[in-house]
């Protein structure tokens, strides 16, 4: 919008007519213009005569030719305006393009451009002013000439008309004299006007030549922008020339017509004079104006008149016949003359028409050239504009990319610094948290430790209680073992074992041990060592007796023999068994003595082992006793284990953990 306003102001500065238009159309614009540009310059000279002449001409003459002239002139004005208009935009686009093409500072470029433009504009303004002046003056003069010509034409026409009237009308003598006077006046008027017209034409032609010279000079300057105005001026020149010529020809034709009419009038006058003379010769007493005297004519006069009239008629008939005869010759000569004249006129007309045509063509060509140039200029401007647009687009894209890059960089930096700060913060918080957690953990650990200590104490107490219980039950078991009477087994150990099992329900070892007790001991009880010892002797006796009996030797005879052996063989009642049994120690008697010895020394186990070495019938005989011994041994072992275990457990619990 600012550009539009600025452009309007600039253009108004340059074209006053436009400024006037704008001032007329938009209110308060004249104030704006006055503010920006100064008061409006007086409109150039060209405009006044144009308006004046258009008004005057339209007022005076409503002929087609003049409106054509005015049309031409307005066309010229329009073209002038157009020239002004088309001058404006290129400058601006040039301003736009300049910085893009060369990397000069915009101010300098603009200044340079402004300078250039100003110089051009000055030149242009001078040129245009010159042209305008020349055109104005020429147009004025031409119009004057044309006006003069038209006046001459009018005068001629009037004169002719009046002459014809005078010829044809037969007014009374005084009126006739006035008529003749009027005619003379008209004639003088006509001649004057013709002279004036001739002078005006000469002046106009001189002005046209001057204008042509100016146009050529302008053309030599070769300013592109001025071309349209030049073209317009040329066109106007041409049109003016054409109009002038046409008017001149019209005047010439009018003149020729007038000549004809005057010739005709002369002829008529001649005839009339001759007739008058004849009439006077015949009737001298009749006055010149015989028309009013018809009433006063006598018979003779009438007869003579009629005779004269007849004679005249005959004469005329003869002349007519002569004329008819000479008609062809006359016609031919006239034709020839006419041909010559026509040819001359034709040549002249052709030459003028040719010149006009040539001029027209040239103007048209120039106009076309100008148009094409304009089109080209417009196209170039559009291309330049496109290029500028492309450049601006490219710039925009590059800028956008740069912006993106910079933004991303900035964002990165921002993000990284933010991250750093965040990590710092997190670290600090984490440290705090860690220290706090450590403290908490320490406290918790201590608490846990205390709890555990308490629990372990509780557990230890529990364990101690259990151990105590176990020990008590084991003691009970032990005691039951001691209840074995001689030759009777103990009480069944079941109750005590049950008690043990109950007392140490969680103790696997004790449970295992408790279950390891042989069932006979549980149900029936076991024999004591003493009883077993006692029993041994009977067994010994028996084993001695059947010492020889085994799988192979088991007949009754062998029995007898073995009995004999037993009776006869004497061994030590008790013999200490060696650490290692050799082969010869495996004799029954020896074994039995060993066993007796070990029994006597309380080693039931060894005794059992030794007895186990018996073979044959002796073994069978001792089997029972062995079984019992085994049971007792087992039970004792288990019980001892249990007691040891109970002791250990008790010891363990009483000790500090």
């Amino acid at each position, binding site marked *: 919008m600012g550009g539009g306003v600025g452009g309007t102001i600039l253009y108004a500065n340059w074209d006053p007519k436009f400024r006037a238009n704008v001032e007329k159309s938009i209110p308060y614009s004249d104030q704006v213009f006055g503010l920006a540009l100064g008061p409006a310059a007086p409109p150039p000279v060209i405009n006044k005569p144009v308006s004046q002449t258009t008004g005057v001409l339209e007022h005076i003459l409503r002929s087609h030719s003049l409106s054509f002239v005015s049309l031409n002139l307005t066309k010229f004005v329009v073209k002038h305006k157009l020239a002004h208009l088309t001058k404006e935009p290129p400058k601006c686009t040039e301003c736009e393009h300049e910085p893009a093409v060369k990397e000069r500072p915009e101010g300098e470029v603009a200044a340079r451009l402004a300078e250039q433009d100003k110089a051009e504009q000055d030149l242009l303004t001078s040129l245009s002013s010159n042209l305008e002046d020349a055109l104005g003056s020429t147009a004025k003069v031409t119009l004057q000439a044309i006006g003069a010509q038209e006046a001459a034409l009018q005068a001629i026409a009037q004169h002719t008309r009046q002459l014809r009237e005078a010829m044809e009308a037969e007014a009374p003598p005084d009126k006739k004299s006035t008529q003749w006077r009027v005619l003379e006046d008209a004639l003088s008027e006509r001649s004057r006007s013709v002279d004036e017209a001739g002078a005006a034409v000469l002046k106009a032609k001189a002005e046209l030549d001057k204008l042509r010279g100016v146009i050529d000079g302008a053309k030599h300057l070769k300013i592109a922008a001025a071309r349209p105005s030049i073209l317009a001026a040329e066109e106007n020149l041409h049109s003016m020339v054409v109009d002038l010529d046409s008017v001149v020809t019209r005047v010439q034709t009018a003149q020729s017509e007038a000549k004809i009419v005057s010739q005709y009038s002369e002829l008529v006058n001649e005839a009339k004079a001759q007739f008058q003379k004849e009439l006077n010769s015949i009737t001298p007493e009749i006055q010149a104006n015989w028309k009013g005297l018809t009433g006063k004519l006598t018979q003779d006069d009438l007869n003579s008149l009629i005779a004269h009239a007849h004679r005249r008629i005959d004469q005329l008939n003869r002349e007519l016949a002569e004329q008819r005869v000479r008609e062809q010759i006359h016609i031919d000569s006239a034709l020839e003359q006419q041909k010559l004249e026509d040819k001359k006129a034709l040549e002249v007309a052709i030459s003028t028409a040719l010149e006009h045509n040539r001029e027209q063509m040239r103007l048209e060509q120039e106009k076309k050239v100008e148009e094409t140039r304009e089109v080209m200029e417009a196209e170039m401007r559009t291309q330049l504009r496109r290029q500028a647009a492309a450049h601006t687009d490219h710039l925009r894209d590059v800028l956008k990319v740069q912006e993106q890059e910079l933004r991303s960089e900035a964002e990165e930096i921002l993000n990284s610094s933010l991250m750093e700060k965040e990590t710092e913060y997190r670290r600090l918080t984490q440290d705090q948290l860690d220290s706090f957690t450590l403290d908490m953990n320490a406290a918790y650990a201590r608490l846990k430790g205390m709890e555990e200590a308490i629990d372990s104490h509780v557990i230890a107490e529990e364990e101690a209680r259990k151990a105590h219980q176990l020990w008590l039950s084991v003691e009970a078991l032990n005691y039951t073992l001691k209840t074995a009477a001689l030759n009777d087994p103990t009480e069944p150990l079941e109750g005590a074992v049950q008690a043990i099992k109950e007392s140490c329900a969680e103790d696997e070892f004790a449970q295992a041990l408790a279950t390891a007790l042989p069932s006979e001991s549980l149900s029936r009880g076991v024999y004591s060592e003493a009883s077993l010892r006692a*029993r041994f002797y*009977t067994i010994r006796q*028996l084993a001695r007796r059947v010492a020889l009996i085994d799988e192979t030797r*088991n007949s009754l005879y062998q029995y007898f023999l073995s009995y004999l052996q037993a009776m006869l063989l004497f061994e030590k009642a008790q013999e200490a068994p060696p650490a290692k049994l050799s082969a010869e120690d495996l004799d029954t008697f020896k074994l039995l003595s060993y066993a007796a010895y070990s029994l006597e020394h309380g080693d039931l186990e060894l005794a059992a082992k030794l007895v186990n070495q018996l073979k044959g019938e002796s073994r069978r*005989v*001792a*089997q029972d006793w062995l079984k019992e011994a085994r049971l007792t041994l087992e039970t004792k072992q288990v019980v001892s284990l249990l007691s040891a275990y109970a002791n250990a457990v008790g010891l363990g619990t009483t000790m500090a953990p």
Partner: protein
Amino acid sequence: MAEEQGRKWDRCLADSAVKLATGLGVGIVFSVLFFKRRTWPVVFGLGVGLGMGYSNCQQDFRSPYLLHGHMVKEQ
């Protein structure tokens, strides 16, 4: 187990005695009945009785050592 020997002996003796007596009796019977009161069937009978008793006794004493074999037929 120790008493078994005693029991065995008891049995054996009892059995032998019985056998002996029976043998005697049968011998006597036979001798009386069939062999015209000679003494050899009595003695024979005694001997048989004794022998049977001895054999039984021996069998009884041997019994733990006797192996009972089974013949497995090839199928």
